[in-house]
């Protein structure tokens, strides 16, 4: 469960995001406008000799970015992309939104470049939800969320006015997949088996060899 849900936020906050989104939308070039309420990360990295055996959590090393509405929109979008189903739990239950927040808050070049894309994309989602349904994205029902996502989930097919949002969706889906499939339930979902000690290495089982049409050649 997310700590904050959208409909409990004040009108004043809602107004602020819509204003921010309007600034973002006004940019003609680039993915979204850079710098519209998205300051560069101030934190330091983990250095060249971090403890590799510690259990780290997002926010342990550098401060996170998302404000409450962004966090709420990110959680809802994560779970639309990776819902709970027969292949495993939802993305938000695996900490994926926090991973994405950690990612865009990191003081490194690759991550910094994703920062405005993600933050302004989340703000756009809320603005778009407001335009279409008079509510924030997190407060929409599933069909309404899908109506927006269906317009931006395929970069090649997205209409010109949705190209920027589609680039955001593509980036967000990619981060989401990375965050999801790097957890034990995500491993199970994708079919990775391992990270466990074993007395022998038996190689691929007969059904795998048969499926691919090869034979084991090492005795």
């Amino acid at each position: 469960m997310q700590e904050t849900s959208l409909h409990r936020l004040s009108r004043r906050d809602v107004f602020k995001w819509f204003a921010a989104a309007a600034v973002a939308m006004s940019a003609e070039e680039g993915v979204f406008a850079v710098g519209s309420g998205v300051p560069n990360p101030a934190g330091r990295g983990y250095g060249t000799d971090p403890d590799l055996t510690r259990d780290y959590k997002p926010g342990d090393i550098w401060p996170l970015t998302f404000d409450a509405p962004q966090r709420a929109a990110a959680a809802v979008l994560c779970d639309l992309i990776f819902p709970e189903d027969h292949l495993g739990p939802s993305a938000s239950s695996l900490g994926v939104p926090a991973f994405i927040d950690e990612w865009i808050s990191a003081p490194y070049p690759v991550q910094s470049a994703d920062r405005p894309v993600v933050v302004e994309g989340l703000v756009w989602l809320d603005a778009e939800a407001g335009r279409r349904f008079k509510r924030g994205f997190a407060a929409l029902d599933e069909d309404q969320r899908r109506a927006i996502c269906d317009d931006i989930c395929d970069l090649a097919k997205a209409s010109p006015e949705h190209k920027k949002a589609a680039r955001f969706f593509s980036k967000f889906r990619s981060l989401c997949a990375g965050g999801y499939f790097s957890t034990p339930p995500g491993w199970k979902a994708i079919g990775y088996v391992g990270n466990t000690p074993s007395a022998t290495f038996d190689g691929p089982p007969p059904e795998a060899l048969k499926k691919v049409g090869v034979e084991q050649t090492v005795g």
Partner: protein
Amino acid sequence: MAIITPSKTQPAYDVIIVGSGAGGGQAAYTLTLAGMKCVMLEAGRNYEPARETPMFQRPDQAPLRGLTTPEKPFGFYDSTIDGGWEVPGEPYTQASDKREEQFHWWRPRMLGGRTNHWGRISLRNGPYDFKPRSRDGLGFDWPIAYEDVDPYYTRVEQLIGVFGTNSGMENTPDSPEGVLMPPPKGRIAELLAQKFGRKMGVPFMPIHRAVLTRQQDWQGLPAKLHPDNPRAQRIVQEAMRARAACFWATDCGRGCSIGANYQSTTVHLPPALATGDLDILPNAHAREVLVNAEGKAVGVLYIDKATGKEMRVLGRAVILAASSGETVRILLNSNGGKGVANSSGLVGKYIMDTVGTSVAGQIPQLEDCPPHNEDGAGGAHFYAPWWGYKDQAAGQLDFPRGYHIETGGSRRMPSGANPVPEDFTRGLYGTRLKEAARRYYGSFVSYSCRGEMIPNEGSFCELDPALKDKWGIPVLRWHWKWSEHELRQVAHARKTFIELIQSMGGSMRSPESNNPLEYIEAGGKIIHEVGGAIMGADPKHSVCNQWNQTWDVKNLFLCDGSSFASNADKNPTLTIMALAWRAGDHLVEQAKKGNL
């Protein structure tokens, strides 16, 4: 004796060893087990694999799911400390702005150096590889032949533990019966490459890697390695007993807390320390070899990184094993910047890396494969040794020398990167996205060329005329040049890989290119830098002799890759160790005769 600080150094040692990786580790092992008192200088910090290795840590326990950053360029869990392509405060420079004329220098700053994270690929050079000029007129012959090194390859394989099979292939030497450990079974993508490679005449087979696939024969091997030396046998027995066999999980690049693979810190240094004859001085950055008026090495000038002060350590002989680049730098900076062991003018010349290029593909045949564990021995199980000698002899290839193929692609642990590319999941979200990821996961393969670079006049390093590091030591400036030989080689490799992928019914996923300069890996990127102080038969045309001993300074030995006169496609680490053992034996013999 043990891990010490500068105030605890002895007044004098038999041998000072600079560097603690494959060469320095082997030298320390050989010399201390022979009873010589040694001190080892390491520019980085002490490192304890048993305590520090992240063995089962998951990506979701690491910052950024463990993905690479400039501070950990091979990922969070990679066993590289305080280094990578850049070392804070210790820059290097490029003579050219052009990408293809630059060299990228990987340096860790930790006990054990690069051996903590390396791929463990352990290949013997073959007979041709020591006499390349005699075969095709290019590069240089070594002053030694395969037969000189063969017994040392065997000893190193027995000491560190190497799995593999004897192929019987041309210039791909077999090990004596019983020396190699049994290879692990093939993974699904490796078996597929083997099946289709066979049709093209490309022989995929078990690779040789320094991973224990079973417990070492600790009762039998020490007597073979150290006949007539009961003390060494006893110490090595204990060290071998302390290593466990691989438990088939955890990528070798993280290092290994149970000593199941070779790294200097778990294989060479524990027995060397157990002799009581080794002091290890971490955080000691060697600056100069000190030479007396008679031209003999008497010690090493180093920076104590804890205080920033210049310190000295004295000894009867000096071994540099700091990596080719750093060894060259120390030689050139010695004698107040006038240099030592450089009457040939060749120190820094003929730097080589391995020739690299990769092609990625997607193979429909591998889709929807039943899930199974392919962690295996924490790295590659198969490779293809160079198979083209006959074609070359028949004049059918447009390049000399060879390359081997390393295979990628298996059901590896997904890290934090999106495991399935966007074009396979276009438009998808929700359960359909999960199903697509499950279908395509494990269907991506890659093939990498690891080939021989021929030394040339345009690839070298020298002291930068202006820039100094944070300790005030002049830094290296690199020059790089690929010749037509390397460019034609990668073109052949690329064509071969694309053909292999297509023969499997797959599609190529690397960017289209007809320009080898675009797809050859930049100099240094394979991290096999060798040369810079090559060995040879005469002092005018080489820096050291066949014993890794510099011509000019008799008690100065170079035991890393710097002495390599050529860089065969075989990964250099095993040869570095074999030659360091051989040089160590020679040094002990000379010391006994009073010749140092």
